[in-house]
């Protein structure tokens, strides 16, 4: 056991006093590995006591150069790349890209394929929001909701896996429709196997559970006094500021903007279903949480409606074996779980894109952070950071 020299102790106390007299800005490094950063993000925060005077996010640790890689890959190969952008909702990433290419090719997509795309996109939304429901309370100190939310997320992942074969990276979309299941096609002639047996009933049952978990989370988290104290009125983002930074999705709707691309664009047949857009009032961390919780309920309701009305028919439009996309320039965007995801696709008529600009939601959602964290308290830093619900794969691309 070490003994402490009293003379040294006296020296230490002197030092601490003199440090306290010279409080200056301190640079606080958060990350590059931190549980609340959902990937590899580093924040360099300048703090003055308990106040954050400025924050600079350092990104690029997950940069994989997809825009460059897309310039050396054929269109069918790119879907495998793009569902790794936002890895907690892989399926949803494929949709705007595949729709952009299909529109340039002027393909008519069979209705059943569109419904399957829509169901799986909404499942990806539930999966993404359940990750938020587990991680966000955890980041501000509530460990229990994690167990509840991740338990229910397994149901959704199992369903996605049953259809596509992959839990996170389905790579299931094909130009002209969705992938025919094993056994479908020329060999089986008239029998087209698409959705696995029991999928529709299983989906109905699982969506019933989604309403239950929302109620459970409502009881566990929403009314919790500590949770409210950490989130209500914290990190307020005005709507005009959010729009000028390009913040989209639930983060924008929490600021009171009633805007959802599912209502305004036709990349998937959302106009056939009845659903509301949850909108927040104050634009604080609590509203960003509440909007996402309500979106789980909405997504479950859309999926049930789609399962009830899914038409039968083919899964694939007729496409050439060697896919060349006619020359043209198009931008297709979709309401992904994290916000507006779009692809600006330029084709010169060949087998590979000339340029593919990927507009990912988390990139712009994170770009507002330096503005949002200015002059906040250090304890609120993680609460605000977590409430933006970004994934670093979606930031860095």
């Amino acid at each position, binding site marked *: 056991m070490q003994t402490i020299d009293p003379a040294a102790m006296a020296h230490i106390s002197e030092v601490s006093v003199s440090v306290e007299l010279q409080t200056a800005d301190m640079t606080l490094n958060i990350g590059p590995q931190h549980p609340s950063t959902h990937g590899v993000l580093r924040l360099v925060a300048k703090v003055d006591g308990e106040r954050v005077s400025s924050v600079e996010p350092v990104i690029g640790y997950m940069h994989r150069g997809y825009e460059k890689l897309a310039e*050396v890959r*054929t269109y069918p190969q790119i879907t495998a790349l793009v569902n790794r952008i936002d890895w907690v909702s892989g399926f949803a990433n494929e949709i705007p890209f595949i729709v952009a290419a299909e529109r340039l090719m002027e*393909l008519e997509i069979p209705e059943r394929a569109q419904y399957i795309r829509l169901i799986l996109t909404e499942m990806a939304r539930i999966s993404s929001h359940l990750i938020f429901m587990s991680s966000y309370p955890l980041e501000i100190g509530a460990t229990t909701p994690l167990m509840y939310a991740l338990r229910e997320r397994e149901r959704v992942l199992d369903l996605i896996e049953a259809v596509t074969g992959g839990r996170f990276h389905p790579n299931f979309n094909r130009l*002209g429709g969705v992938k025919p299941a094993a056994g479908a096609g020329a060999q089986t002639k008239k029998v087209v196997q698409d959705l696995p047996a029991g999928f529709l009933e299983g989906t109905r049952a699982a969506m019933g559970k989604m309403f239950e978990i929302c109620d459970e989370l409502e009881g566990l988290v929403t009314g919790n006094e500590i949770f409210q104290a950490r989130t209500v009125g914290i990190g307020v983002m005005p709507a005009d500021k959010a729009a*000028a930074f390009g913040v989209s999705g639930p983060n924008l709707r929490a600021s009171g903007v009633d805007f959802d691309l599912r209502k305004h664009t036709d990349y998937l047949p959302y106009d056939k279903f009845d659903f509301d857009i949850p909108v927040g009032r104050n634009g604080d961390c609590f509203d960003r949480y509440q909007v996402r919780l309500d979106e789980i309920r909405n997504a479950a309701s859309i999926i049930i409606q789609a399962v009830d009305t899914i038409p039968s028919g083919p899964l694939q439009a007729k496409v050439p074996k060697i896919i060349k996309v006619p020359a043209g320039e198009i931008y297709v965007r979709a309401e992904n779980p994290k916000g507006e995801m*779009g692809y600006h696709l330029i084709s010169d008529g060949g087998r590979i894109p000339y340029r593919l600009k990927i507009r990912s939601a988390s990139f*712009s959602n994170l770009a507002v952070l330096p503005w949002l964290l200015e002059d906040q308290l250090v304890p609120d830093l993680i609460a605000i950071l977590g409430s933006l619900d970004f994934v670093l794969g979606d930031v860095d691309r």
Partner: protein
Amino acid sequence: MTTNQSDADEAPEEAAEAPVDDAEATADAADAPADGTAERAQRFAELVGAESWTADHGLAKIRVSNEQWVGAVSTAHKNGMPFFSFLSAVDWSRDVAVGEPLADEDVDERFELMVRLSTLSNDDSITIVTDLDKANPAIDSLTPVLPGANWHEREAAEMFGIDFRGHPNPKKLYLPDAFEGFPLRKSFPLLSREVKPWPGMVDVEAMPESAGSPSTENPEATDGVADDAAEGGVSDADD
């Protein structure tokens, strides 16, 4: 193709008389949907005093000069386009180190800088573009008028080598500080492809019996495919 030059007479209805690049574009104009894209493009082109505009595939594209750039984006942003979607660039180049060269060999070599703005009430959007000189790609920064452009400009700067004059924080965004070169330029090679050709290219090589023809039927889709779907360059060779 709906297109308009400011020195051409005026209305988009006269676009059919405008020079058309190729036969495919003519076909587009015949069945171009009346979705208001052309009207929107024309309205904003007049508002910002643009050189020209196009409206294909729902993309209202407005071309401005380098001097108009900041003013045009700022004006559109304040007049009904509050949402900043993205800023990026395209390297139009005849020589490419990766991928396939452009089909159009006479392309005007340039960097095309683009910014996309949207409404928050419907699907209306506009894309404002400007052409930058390849030898000296520099332009005034949008960040002072549009805070969201900050990171997008830093990305375009490091990826394409564009100088955004007056940017408040002109540092690299993704790449290490010591990185040399501009990865998204077409002249920048992809090293892994230099070492080893892309094995994935094999599965799209033409089959021996259909060499050079893009219209081979898809054997996976011979059954249960939509019969009315074979349009637009897809031949019905199997029928």
